[in-house]
Every structure is written in structure tokens, then in C-alpha cells.
């Protein structure tokens, strides 16, 4: 049982990390950024390229080197996110919602198949692996590497939460989420704040990409699709636009999948997990922590 919980929490923390970017972007400009999962993929490949360029890494240095790569990758994918927003989304900000959605799907394709053209369709294997002996905690197999990854995810999420709730920048984001036009009148540089939001969300997705690459080993150009979908789901369960809710949503989805597999078998896992979600959303359409928003006119 503890094993199931641990499996669920571990996968869930990846979902949560990716879901945050979805949630932030949606919260601020009401855009479902379908290319978000592909920024996760991009992160995995950027990390792969940096590690490849750095050459061999001695086993003792694995963690520090990976941390450095993680930071560099976050910067890289963050900038890619900003570019994406500038090129694909900003010109359409006042266009009908549907055009923006289709643009996001297009951006997703461009990233996926651009990566395929650049790096090839063959899956790549990370040169550095987070391998380690497992030890038992309350009957669950846990590795030190898993703990480090979860720790990293928690630090990143806590940092984000602080940023949004405690800083001027965060206040500006929240203001834009409430009402972009008034925010502009109050002297907030809306475009710049949106750019920075994309930077942060994309950087988190990139971080998750590197972490997944180093832990699981295999990366490929389509790896972002499924996790993008899952992250979107996690964001909706938690209450899209709400940061602590999104984190909870990610963990909850991970746990649902883990228990679904155990109770009903792998074939029924997604039926179970998503069935619960549908039920849940019919009861609470705003998600776990989402607020009931009064429709603005």
C-alpha cells in the first residue's frame, strides 16, 4: 500500500510541475497552452544536448552536474517559452479564443516535428542516469534519487508559490489575472508580466523534462504530448489558475493512476482515473481549490 502511495506521489510530482505552467498561463491570459507539454520535451532535449556537449561525467559528480544542467535548461526553455508567446500568442491576444487555441495546437506540432527534424525520430538515451540502490521506508522501495527529485520539485513549487503570493511581480500577475485592462491603467506593464509568466512556467516544464530524462533515461520528440494532457487534467482537477490547487491536482492524479492500476489493472487505469475526474468535476466544476468566478461582462 505504501508502495502505491509512493509511486503515485512520485509520478504526481512530475505532473504537478508541468501542470503549474498550464495553470499560470491559463490563470493570467485564459489560454490553454497546448504547446506546454512540448516545452517539457524541449527541456529534456536541451538538457541532453548540454550533457552531450559537456562530455563524460564522473559518477561522483552526477548530482551537482545535473543541477547545473537543470538551471541552464530552465533558462533555455524559459526563453523558448517567452519566444513562443511573443511569436505565436501575443499577436492573437485580442483575437477570438478559438484562434488562440488552434495556434497553440499548431505551436505544439511545430515544436514536436521541429525537434524530430532536428534530432531525429529515434529515441535518445541520457548519458547520465540517476541510478541507485533502493531502501525500504514503511514497506515502500525508495531511492535516494527519487527523494532528491521530489525534493527539487517541492523546492521549485514552493519558490513559485512565494513568488506569486509575496512579491510585487506576483501581485502584478494576480492583478492581470483579475482584470488586464484595469491593471494596465494602474501602470502595470502587462506584456512584460505575461512574458515573465511564460518564462517561469516554461522553465518549470523544462526542469521537469530534464528530471524525467535523467531519471527514466529515454527521451523522444513525442514525450511531451501525453504528459501535457495529464498535466492539463491535473490543473483542471486542482482548479486551473490556482497554484496550490494545481500542485494538489498533480499529486491526486498520480495517486489515482497508481491505485487504479492496482485495483483494476493497467487496462482500466485511465478509465478509472478519468472516470473519477469526471465525477469529481460534475460535483465540483471549479476543481479542488478553484474559486467560483463570477462571469465578467
Amino acid at each position, binding site marked *: 500500500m505504501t*508502495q*502505491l502511495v509512493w*509511486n*503515485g506521489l*512520485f*509520478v504526481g510530482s*512530475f505532473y504537478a510541475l508541468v501542470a503549474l505552467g498550464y495553470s499560470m498561463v491559463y490563470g493570467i491570459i485564459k489560454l490553454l497552452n497546448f504547446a506546454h507539454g512540448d516545452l517539457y520535451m524541449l527541456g529534456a532535449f536541451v538538457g541532453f544536448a548540454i550533457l552531450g556537449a559537456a562530455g563524460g561525467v564522473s559518477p561522483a559528480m552526477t548530482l551537482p552536474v545535473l543541477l547545473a544542467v537543470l538551471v541552464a535548461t530552465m533558462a533555455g526553455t524559459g526563453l523558448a517559452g517567452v519566444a513562443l508567446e511573443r511569436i505565436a500568442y501575443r499577436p492573437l491576444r485580442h483575437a477570438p479564443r478559438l484562434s488562440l487555441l488552434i495556434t497553440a*495546437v*499548431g505551436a*505544439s*506540432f511545430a515544436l514536436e*516535428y521541429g525537434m*524530430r527534424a532536428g534530432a*531525429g*525520430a*529515434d*529515441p535518445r*538515451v541520457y548519458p547520465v*542516469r540517476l*541510478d541507485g540502490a*533502493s531502501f525500504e521506508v514503511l514497506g515502500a*522501495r525508495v*531511492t535516494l534519487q527519487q527523494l532528491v527529485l521530489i525534493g527539487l520539485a517541492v523546492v521549485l513549487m514552493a519558490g513559485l508559490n512565494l513568488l506569486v503570493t509575496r512579491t510585487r511581480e506576483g501581485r502584478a500577475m494576480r492583478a492581470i489575472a483579475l482584470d488586464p485592462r484595469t491593471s494596465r491603467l494602474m501602470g502595470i506593464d502587462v506584456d512584460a508580466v505575461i512574458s515573465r509568466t511564460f518564462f517561469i512556467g516554461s522553465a518549470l516544464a523544462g526542469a521537469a523534462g530534464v528530471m*524525467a530524462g535523467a531519471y*527514466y*533515461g*529515454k527521451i*523522444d520528440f*513525442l*514525450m511531451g*504530448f*501525453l*504528459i501535457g494532457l495529464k498535466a492539463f487534467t491535473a490543473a483542471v482537477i486542482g482548479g486551473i489558475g490556482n497554484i496550490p490547487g494545481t500542485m494538489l491536482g498533480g499529486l491526486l492524479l498520480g495517486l489515482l*493512476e*497508481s491505485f487504479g*492500476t*492496482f485495483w483494476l*489493472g*493497467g*487496462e482500466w*487505469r*485511465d478509465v478509472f482515473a478519468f472516470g473519477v475526474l469526471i465525477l469529481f468535476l460534475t460535483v465540483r466544476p471549479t476543481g479542488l481549490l478553484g474559486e467560483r468566478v463570477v462571469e465578467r461582462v
Partner: protein
Amino acid sequence: MRAIPLKSIAALAAISLLTAGCGQGLLGGASDSDKQAGPIVLGMLIPQSGSEAAIGPYMSNAAQLAIDEINAKGGVLGRKLELKTADDACDAQSASAGANKLVTEGVAVSVGGYCSGATLPTLPIFGKAGIPMIIPAANSQELVDQKLKHVFLINGTGSQQAAAAQKWIAKQGGTRAVLMHDNTSYSKDIALRTKELLGAQAVAVEAVTPKESDYSANVTNVLSHKPDFVYWTGYFQEGGLIIRQLRQAGYKGSIMVGDGSVSPKLAEIAGASTAEGVYATMTQTPDTIQGASGWIDAYKKKFGSEPGPYSNQSYDAVRLAAEAITKAGGTDGAKVISALEAMDGFQMFSGPLKFTPEHTLASGGFQILVVKDGAFALQDPLT
């Protein structure tokens, strides 16, 4: 199933745009009279995009190699052969679009088909056009269950592979086997057939969702049955991860994979030391065929890379198509089908060819391979 309707449609649109752009070549305006004199076109549906895109070139290169060899000897019935490929993306919608494209391009024989799930919907499309299909790789039993006259499989079938798996598990003394599949028709078919053959020795069947990274939940399930033999029947991308995660979770028993997982990438993904000793059920690959080194050299010289899984079957599919057209004296579909049915003793990599009444190989030719120093080597020919 791959439930990506929105994306698939867009992908289709993109692909058809692309292909429309470059389809204006030789056959763009071929009329019926040209068809008699121009090259004989062989069509090949292979994955060129999507998750299985890595396999496509192995197949199309080998087919091209066979075509070049045949053309160098004067072609077939005085006409040159020409290869047209289309992308099936290992996905039913893309495959149907690709098959329709090949049909309008006037192919005489189809020599492609890798993913069973993508090949299945193309059967009626080629069938309606009266085009015989020699399928080199896809091998789900469902392909021949409909007893379609124009469908021929030259790879071993799912039931033959399951028989080989059962034989090896029994030989290794496995008593608690768990079968793992990825819910695709090809993979599930082999897993369920193997389970049936194993009877009480099979303790569980576990299905996973392909394209994910974390299979720890499935691994926990598998280990709860205390298995001594795990047989994975899906593709190598997930296979590598599953092997790795099984071993990480402390599983010490035997692991075996199906032919979709036989790729150098499997050991790379799993980690070379982790994959060591993993068995595989596989038809002949270029490496395990006696006396194929000359062929491998020719392939390498032409394409600058090693042949891979299904290169030899694709090469044989083209040669077989050429032979059948020669015997039939033309490209008329019905005559070519009769010629294929009458084929007896045509030499292929898998041995002399003779089709069973259901249009599969009389013997599947499955062997057991094992990962040794990070690469697949022959363990037992199972003869």
C-alpha cells in the same frame, strides 16, 4: 488506443499537403496507357513519423536495395521497378490516407506494413483496388483472420510467436509467467495467445499505456504475483523502460521481449548491464542469418548505415513481388495473387517459401535471442 483525433487530423492535413506537393513527379499524370509501359510501382506503407518512425528507413532502404538489384538485371518483364512510400505514422487514420494515396498512384503490389494496428484498416483499401499485399513486418493474427485473398504475411504470425515464447518459457522452467502488453492489437494478441498456451503457468496479464515514462505502478502489480518469468510483447521504447524499472524494483527472474522490442535501443534505454540476459522471440534478423554478411555489406555501402529489424523481410517482400509479377506475366492483381499462392520453394531469408492456405508462412522461423554485451545475439534457434 491512440486517442489524438485533433492532432491526427492536423497531421493528416499536413502530410497530405506535403505529399501533394511532391507527388507531381513521374506518375503525377500517368494515364492507363502509360501504366503498361512505364515502371511497375510497388507501394510501401511504413512509419516515417510518429513513435515508430525509426523503423521506416530500415524497411524502405532494404526495399530500395532489392529494387535496384532487380533493375540492374533488367527489371521485371522488361519494365523497371519503382518504389513509392507513404507514411502510416503507426496510426490508423494516417495509414488509411497513405493507402489511398498509394492506390491513386497506381501501385501494382503493396510491400509495406509494420504496425499491425495501422495495417489493418488498409486491407480493404488495397483489396477494393485489387492490389495484392505482401506484408513484411506486421504480423497480428487479425490480419489474416478475415481470410482476405489479397493479403499475404511473410513475417511469422502472432500465434507462431506465442508458440515460440511458450516453448522457451517451458524450456527455462518458468512456472509463474506474467505477460505484459501495451494494448495494441499486435502486442495484446501475442500476450493472450501465450497465456492460453501456458495455461496454469501464466499467472497474470498486465497491460500498460504506451508512450509514458513511469511504469512503476504496473511493475508493482507484476511483482505482486511473484513471477519468475516476465514476457513483454510490445515495442522497445516502453520495453527498455519496463526492463529497467522491473530490475530497479528488485525483480531477479527472467525477462523476455517480443519482436517489436528487438532493437539496439532496447539495451541502451534499459542500460546495458540491466538488459544483459534479456531474451527475445524474433524472426531472423540480418545478424542472425547465416551467410547474410554479403547482403549486410551491400546495404551498408548503399545507405551508410546498418540494416535493422525487418530490413530482410522488406527486401524479400520486394523480391517476392517481382517474382510473382514475372510468373503472372503482368500486374493484374488476380493473376499476381494466384502466382503468390502457387509459389513453392522461392528462396528467402526465412528459408524456402510456401504459403499456408491462410496466406502465412508455413513455419514462423522464430528464434530466441539474448542480450549479450548490450546487443542481441542468437541463443536458441528453437528448431
